[in-house]
């Protein structure tokens, strides 16, 4: 029966563990930009209240369970009848209300703040980068610079970046935890967010919204460079990188995990997936797996509808990492 007591110290360890989280260098607690810092301030604010709740309730719990446990000594003790106490019940209705209010106000402030260019950067001209997620890679287009990268994005440090997010297919989520929170990328929709990196450095970004076989590999790097280095990089790319064609772009959109790629033009010239009436690029046959094959329907606005030939060719030169998906006829 006394075993129960173990639970009390065990439970007391939990908040300590939670606290110790702060110096474990977890990426969320180690912000590298004003956006992430803004969110971390909010998280820390909430942690204070939550720890308070945890400590109070755990303490009360431990005290009550210990004090009123059944022992051989209090065998004849008959607990009193009590229906409740209006006073106490009002107290513990109001304390949570106060905590909720204390958390709500900064939350809403932060939500609105994150919609805008971070404080202190209002006067710096933001750089726009269009992010297009496809299965299973990230495509970054720099409309102002006229270049495009795959699976990595270089940005000037200390400059606000206006990320315009969209997807060529499935719903995905763009997250660079060191720099800020995440947002979904969706086809025929544009979502937007600002990020700033304080210093030059490399940060990991990734998709957090599950989107099929290649999901685990959907990582990219954000490399913040000094403005000079960034300008130089752009120049280099403009002069050295190959051009992306519509045909090679369609190949790029096919399901695959890729390494880094760089182009000296952007796909925005022929399609912006954020556009409500954009053509779509789907390749259902390439997603076959060991399932019993189901019927595939023709999308009325698929890009293949415009072309009469060359379709079967597209299917052949797919570059799949991992196992072949096969069509209906290539049974396992």
């Amino acid at each position, binding site marked *: 029966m006394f075993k129960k007591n173990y639970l009390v110290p065990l439970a007391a360890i939990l908040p300590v563990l939670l606290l110790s989280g702060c110096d474990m260098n977890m990426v969320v607690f180690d912000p590298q930009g004003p956006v992430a810092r803004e969110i971390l301030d909010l998280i820390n604010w909430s942690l204070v209240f939550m720890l308070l709740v945890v400590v109070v309730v755990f303490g009360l719990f431990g005290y009550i369970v210990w004090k009123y446990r059944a022992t051989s000594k209090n065998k004849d003790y008959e607990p009193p009848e009590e229906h409740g106490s209006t006073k106490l019940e009002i107290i513990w209705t109001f304390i949570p209300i106060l905590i909720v209010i204390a958390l709500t106000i900064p939350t809403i402030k932060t939500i609105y703040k994150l919609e805008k260019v971070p404080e202190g950067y209002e006067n710096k001209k933001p750089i726009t980068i269009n992010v297009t997620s496809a299965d299973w890679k990230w495509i970054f287009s720099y409309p102002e610079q006229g270049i495009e990268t795959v699976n990595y994005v270089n940005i000037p440090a200390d400059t606000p970046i206006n990320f315009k997010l969209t997807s060529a297919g499935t719903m995905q989520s763009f997250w660079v935890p060191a720099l800020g929170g995440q947002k979904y990328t969706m086809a025929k929709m544009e979502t937007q967010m600002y990020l700033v990196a304080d210093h030059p450095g490399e940060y990991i970004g990734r998709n957090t919204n599950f989107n099929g076989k290649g999901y685990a590999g959907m990582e990219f790097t954000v490399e913040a460079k000094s403005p000079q280095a960034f300008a130089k990089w752009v120049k280099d790319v403009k002069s050295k990188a190959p051009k992306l064609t519509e045909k090679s772009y369609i190949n790029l959109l096919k399901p695959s995990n890729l390494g880094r790629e760089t182009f000296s033009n952007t796909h925005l010239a022929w399609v912006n997936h954020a556009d409500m009436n954009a053509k779509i690029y789907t390749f259902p046959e390439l997603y076959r797996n060991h399932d019993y094959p189901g019927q595939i329907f023709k999308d009325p606005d698929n890009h293949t509808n415009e072309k009469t030939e060359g379709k079967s060719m597209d299917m052949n030169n797919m570059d799949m990492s991992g196992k072949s998906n096969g069509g209906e006829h290539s*049974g*396992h």
Partner: protein
Amino acid sequence: MGIKWDKFFITGDPLILGSQIAILLTMIGIVALVTYLKKWKWLWREWFTTVDHKRIGIMYILMGVLMFFRGGVDGLLMKAQTATADGKLLDAQHYNEVFTTHGVIMILFMAMPLLIGIMNVIIPLQIGARDVAFPQLNALSFWLTFSGAMLFNISFVIGGSPDAGWTAYFPLAGKEFTPGIGNNFYAVAIQIAGIGTLMTGINFIVTVLKMRVKGMTLMKMPMFTWTSFITSIIIVASFPILTVALALMTFDRIFGTHFFTLGGGGLDMMWVNLFWLWGHPEVYIVVLPAFGMFSEVISTFSRKMLFGYKSMVFSIVGIAFLSMLVWVHHFFTMGAGPAVNSIFSITTMMIAIPTGVKIFNWLFTMRKGRIQFTTAMLWALAFVPCFIIGGTTGVMLAMGAADYQYHNSLFLVAHFHYVLIPGVVFAVFAGLYYWWPKMFGHMLNEKLGKLHFWFFVIGFNMTFLPMFFLGLDGAVRRSYTYSAETGFGPLMLVSAIGAGILAIGFGFLCYNIYWSARYADRNISSDPWDARTLEWATASPAPFYNFAKLPEVKSLDAFWYMKKNNDGLELRENEIKEIHMPSNSGLPIIMAIVFGIAGFFLIFEWKIAALVAALGIIAGLIVRSFDYNDGFHVPVDEIKATEKAWRKVDKEVKDHVS
């Protein structure tokens, strides 16, 4: 129809081949055993066709435990795969299937059946009724749930498992990105089970409103009845949304419509919206009855009435009301405007208020009590601290802006496991240990129970506590692998070991069920816990008519005061009258089988066959419409004999508690 027989069974994978063989052998084994024991008739008469709420409840529980096993194996596979960096146990496709089925099975085929099962057994007893309002509908509900669950489970070996996550977000879950039939299983199997659940909701609302025994006003109902009643209301309010969402999904996948697709103007966000419009209330559907069970267990083993009964009731109603107004917090990161995110942050955080009230009421129920550490009570005690962690991290997640950093990370996974495992699984365990004697007439072994408890609770904390930190370090959910550079390895390994310990705990439960069924003392009191509510006022196990004479309720915790004032406990011979009971019916199980067959054809997109099978459903409805079987009367002599048998035992009450 062009059936491709070569693709019918999933082939080419040792894991699946093993399961296929195991399933086949188990099935042959069961059929052979039943045939050998000549139990087919008995099974059909006593179980398959029963409309007795207690037996239906037991079947629900049995199914829930089986599904717990299946979902648990999925969970273990996931933990084994991610125990080390670059794990090689499963490939991406299998991992995706495994976490999808883990989610669906745990929520819909484990948590719901276990809770509805216990509701089934206990609610009519607690309110002093002879059965639920519509016994035959109740049987149909169960068999539909069962049929849906079986349909969902065979996907592993036939046709292919769904692999788009239990949330099945579009466009991924559409034909454009998952052209196999795997996700049809999701759409159709859950639909069938969902219809069953919806009917359960209606059934229990009417049961609680119309069948309470004399004197039991709404505010004298036991807390478990209250929470189950409110749960039923949420079921009726939210399951139609699921029905529609799944139907639209079915149309998209099987008939080529464009609700959520990428092409044709479909809107993938609408699926997310509809899914969570149902999905969030669903969380409360599983958590509220659990709260009710904790209330019963805590009050019984503190030997005190529930502290603040009224505020408890108000807080459940408050939670139910808020439950329909918070769904957007599941997709704060979708980019909806700041106004939307702010409003839903507020409504979500408001849920903490009634929940906090409940926690304090439970604590103060124990204060000044005499707390006995039975296994049931241990679960209730462990629930409080674990759930506080789940709850506080829930508040953190509710803060829209902060959620941008937590969303879809393992922090979120840890949070909802910290809510659902203490909030539902602990409750179900508490409920099973507490009500086992009421169901089977013997107790579960307390010693094994305590082993079960300690292994499970420690394993659970070990599994999920590290995930909070992993999530804050950038580890995401549903990723089948991670590289060594991430540094997630050590904590992932701790988590995996924890899962193993947790599984051992579950093993103790299974062994306990077996051991107790064979060796436990049958000579126990009908009221072994010295409990407070009406279900203990009759025999254990309860006779099929529940009460020979319906008790009369004068206060809260009616049975406690009946015992205290020695009022209404004895049964005089002349008080026994004939009892009218509903007859068994084979229709529900047949209907469910037909549903299952129609669903199977639909999943394989054999539309005409599905249509033909669906005609069978209509035929069943017609048969039901013309069925005028009015039940039967239990003769007085039979009641007398039954009552005599247990009331003698009642004299020699043994103290099993200490």
